[in-house]
């Protein structure tokens, strides 16, 4: 625990007693069961220690007791805002380990699913961020209206809105027929209209500017040293997007930009997500335009008794929160020997204290909101 609240002289004649509060597991804006032990001097944050582990269900040990396919549905429960990217990360790691070739159409479908889940994740992320700033639910519910359409599409395709369990090693489970493709094209066509309305509501709003600009600045060197990935790092100027670096799936053949910020404060992290959504819409338009015909599942992958030659390997994907990786060790048996997840939300929390010290309590809350963590992924 943090040191007892001694009367540390706050640089003035009057020594004020420090107030130690825990913005605890049950708190309206910690995005789940997450706790921050904050030492306050009046309203200013002096020290902040994140405490995690309330949602820890030891998913990695469960995976050691299950077959390779058995833990695929569990990956939906990691970052339950985009289960498609989680599935893809796990499938990619296994395919890299076992050397499985994925048919062309399945790769295109994977990009559609991952980018749609990125859209609804970023929409909800900025909705929650502005909810923490105090906009009483309006931006969040506009974002959720768009998210509903995307979740309905996921339900039509994979069967469940959030727990899709849609990817298989070597492809996807269900093929997209024309009616589903038409539904996806309609969603992508309507998304920019929502973005424009959202930007007019929030981006130039003086109160949002006053609250978000110059707050929680993350310098570029600290972002790289702290292994920060995803929009949080790109907002600080780190030019690193795994879709461009690894060129996995068909991202190599698609043209899209990766927005990079300069200052790295809460406003940049908010606006980078808006720009990333616009880029995702561009990707979706390209992919939906030229999706080839063909099989959606590699033939040689057996459903039961699927074995991987002994050895270890690390596969990673640009999830909506950052770099989501799977480190798998196999002994040649049907069960993984070691199954480790590289959770972006968990690692992005390393620098939470550096960003919050010196700011007010209200700022600490929106800085946490701007990192956009999901506790399923932090605690695993």
């Amino acid at each position: 625990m943090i040191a007892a609240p001694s009367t540390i002289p706050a640089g003035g004649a009057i020594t004020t007693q420090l107030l130690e509060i825990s913005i605890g597991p049950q708190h309206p804006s910690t995005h789940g069961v997450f706790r921050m032990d904050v030492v306050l001097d009046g309203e200013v944050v002096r020290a902040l220690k994140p405490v995690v582990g309330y949602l820890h269900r030891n998913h990695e040990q469960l995976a050691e007791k299950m077959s390779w396919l058995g833990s695929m549905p569990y990956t939906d429960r990691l970052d339950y805002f985009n289960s498609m990217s989680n599935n893809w990360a796990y499938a990619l790691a296994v395919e890299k380990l076992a050397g499985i070739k994925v048919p062309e159409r399945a790769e295109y479908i994977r990009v559609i699913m991952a980018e749609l889940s990125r859209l609804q994740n970023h929409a909800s992320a900025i909705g929650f961020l502005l909810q923490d700033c105090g906009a009483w639910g309006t931006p969040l519910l506009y974002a959720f209206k768009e998210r509903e359409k995307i979740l309905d599409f996921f339900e039509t395709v994979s069967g469940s809105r959030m727990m899709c369990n849609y990817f298989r090693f070597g492809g996807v489970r269900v093929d997209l027929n024309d009616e589903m493709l038409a539904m996806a094209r309609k969603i992508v066509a309507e998304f920019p209209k929502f973005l424009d309305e959202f930007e007019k509501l929030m981006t130039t709003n003086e109160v949002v500017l006053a609250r978000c600009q110059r707050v929680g600045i993350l310098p570029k060197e600290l972002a790289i040293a702290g292994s920060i990935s995803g929009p949080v790092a790109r907002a600080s100027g780190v030019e690193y997007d795994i879709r461009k670096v690894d060129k996995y799936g068909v991202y190599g053949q698609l043209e899209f930009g990766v927005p990079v910020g300069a200052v790295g404060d809460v406003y940049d992290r908010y606006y980078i997500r808006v720009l990333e959504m616009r880029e995702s819409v561009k990707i979706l338009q390209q992919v939906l335009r030229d999706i080839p015909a063909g099989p959606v599942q590699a033939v040689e992958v057996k459903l039961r008794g699927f074995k991987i030659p002994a050895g270890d390997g690390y596969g990673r994907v640009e999830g909506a929160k950052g770099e989501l990786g799977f480190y798998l060790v196999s002994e040649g048996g049907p069960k993984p020997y070691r199954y480790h997840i590289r959770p972006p939300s968990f690692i992005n929390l390393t620098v939470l204290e550096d960003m919050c010290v010196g700011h007010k309590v209200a700022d600490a809350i929106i800085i946490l909101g701007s990192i956009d963590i999901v506790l399923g992924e932090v605690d695993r």
Partner: protein
Amino acid sequence: MNIAFWIISAVAVLGAVLAVTLRNLVHCVLALILFFIGIAAHYFLLRADFLGTVQILIYVGAVAVLILFAIMLTHNVTGVDGPKELLGVKWWSGAAIAATLAILLKKAILSDPLATLLPAGDKAQSSVAEIGKALVAGWVVSLEAIAILLTAALIGAVVIALEEIQKS
């Protein structure tokens, strides 16, 4: 005198007594506020509504809040571990001073009959206009002096606050 006067003064006296005897500082301040409201009610009773409102505005609105903030900065406010006995050791000296003061006041209070204190119904028009005229006409010098004093106090507060911010 009418009933209202007795009720209000009883409430005011109760507030004053409680303000002195209670252990918990916060309760004392609340009793003090009760006392201030009692005084304001007296003013309204005497149809001096401007004074009553100013009393509420200044004392209840500002001074009481100031005292509350001061209390917030002190320790052990709930008076659990304070001195137990109510009357200090040298209580009799306090009582003597109070007695002499009472005698002097008695002479002033009883010199003119209570009735004159209550202006007749119709004569009581708004006292604000008179006060305004008197302030600007007769007492304009003192008004300006007080104004300068208050601005000086305001600027002093700002300077102290700025020092505090520079240092931390």
